[in-house]
């Protein structure tokens, strides 16, 4: 069986992808604070929710990326 090598470069890439998604989730939090006229303290009090949403986004994006890779491999 071929060993799977996870390079530091690929770890960094995944971290940056998640970071972008975390920023997106934070922006979603800002949007909901403005939309529902709630307290700005939710920027930090709802960090748990934001973190959870960013992970959900990461999983969804991950599924899409796996599908795209599969399509690419299939075309080759």
């Amino acid at each position, binding site marked *: 069986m071929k060993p799977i090598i996870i390079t530091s470069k690929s770890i960094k890439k995944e971290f940056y992808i998640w970071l972008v998604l975390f920023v997106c989730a934070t922006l979603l939090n800002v949007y909901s604070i403005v939309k529902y006229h*709630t307290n700005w303290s939710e920027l930090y009090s709802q960090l748990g929710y934001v973190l959870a949403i960013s992970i959900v986004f990461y999983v969804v994006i991950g599924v899409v990326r796996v599908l795209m890779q599969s399509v690419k491999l299939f075309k080759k």
Partner: protein
Amino acid sequence: MDKKYQNRRDFIKHLAMTGSAVALAASPWLGAFGSSAQSVRGANDMVRMAIIGTGSRGCELLRHLLTFSVAQNIRIVALCDNYNPHLLDAVKLCKEKELNPQSYADYRVMIEKEQLDAVIIATPLYCHAQITVDCLQTGLHVFCEKSMARTLEQTKWMYDTHIATNKILQIGHQRLFNPVYLEGMQRIHDGKLGTIGQIRAYWHRNNNWRRSLPNNDLSYERQINWRLYKEYSAGLLTELMSHQIQVANWALQKTPVSVMGTGSIRYWNDGREVNDNIALIYSYDDGTQFVYDSMTSNKKYGLEEQILGSTGTIEFEVNKQYLETPAAAPGIQQLINDVEHGIFDKLPIGGASWVPETAVNYKGENIVDSTNYMDTSLQLEAFTQFVRKGSAPEKILKEGYNASIWTMLGEIAIEKGEKLSMPKEFII
């Protein structure tokens, strides 16, 4: 007794720690309970007590007393009951704690023979007045179970004897010592529920109050099943409602001006005389209504006292407060909810134009964090402290007195089918 006993010190410490010290200061009985004011007796002097009436409630009170009798230096000197099996039950409880109190069948012999400071009376209701008066006149402090007495006149007689003898008379309304009620009442009195328009209370059970007779001997019927006969009890009114009218009066800090009601024997048609199904409305001078019902053939809703204010609701029995306009959920959670509803909710096509106004589905907040207190123990411990001080706050007795008077008036209103107000001679 499924909760761990926490004593007076734990109780007061907890109130202070949870910010409920205001409740402590504002409750005259609790203030006295917690203070170290000059006592007639030393703080650790032995208090010699006896229990008169050792049936189910008497034994329950005895169990509570035994949990702190050593710590509080209480000596249970004597037990009294004219029904020997009950007396033996209480003796057994004492023996388990290696105590050996004297047993009596006649309380008059007991109070004459024994050197006592106080008695606890847990006899059938119709005996309360005579025994209480005899004990007070002998110079004993008295803790008497609720409801105070069987008639308006007996209730007043007990109160007048307390005034004449200057001895403590405390009635067993344990909610007066319950932290949930103390904190909740403070919020009500501070106006945090807005204007109270209505108080609703109910106590629903699905059980037969009839108890089996020893060897099916009918000569015991009235002694064992005294709760079922009007001569001895007003049934649901004195056994259950008296607790809840006391809560209503306490919440509103006043007594009603009128009562009307109805009642029937709807289900337990077995020769009993007291109603198994009652509904009453008490009105207060500011227009507030206390709406009450009780039955013994359905237990779905159990018991509750609901204080309905313009800005909030309290349900004491479940330790809950509900705001009329609860704080909104955080924005991000609202957004997620909206997205979920957008995806999963069905679109109504030609649906009903009227939506039923069903109860608000909101779980509310706890009134206090911990309910790990036994209010019956706390009230007995308070009574012990009062005995040592030689006096108790009058407010406690007045709560019991007014609850008893208005319970009796409720019974008369049901029987006469009339709206009644308090006769002047019973106003204290």
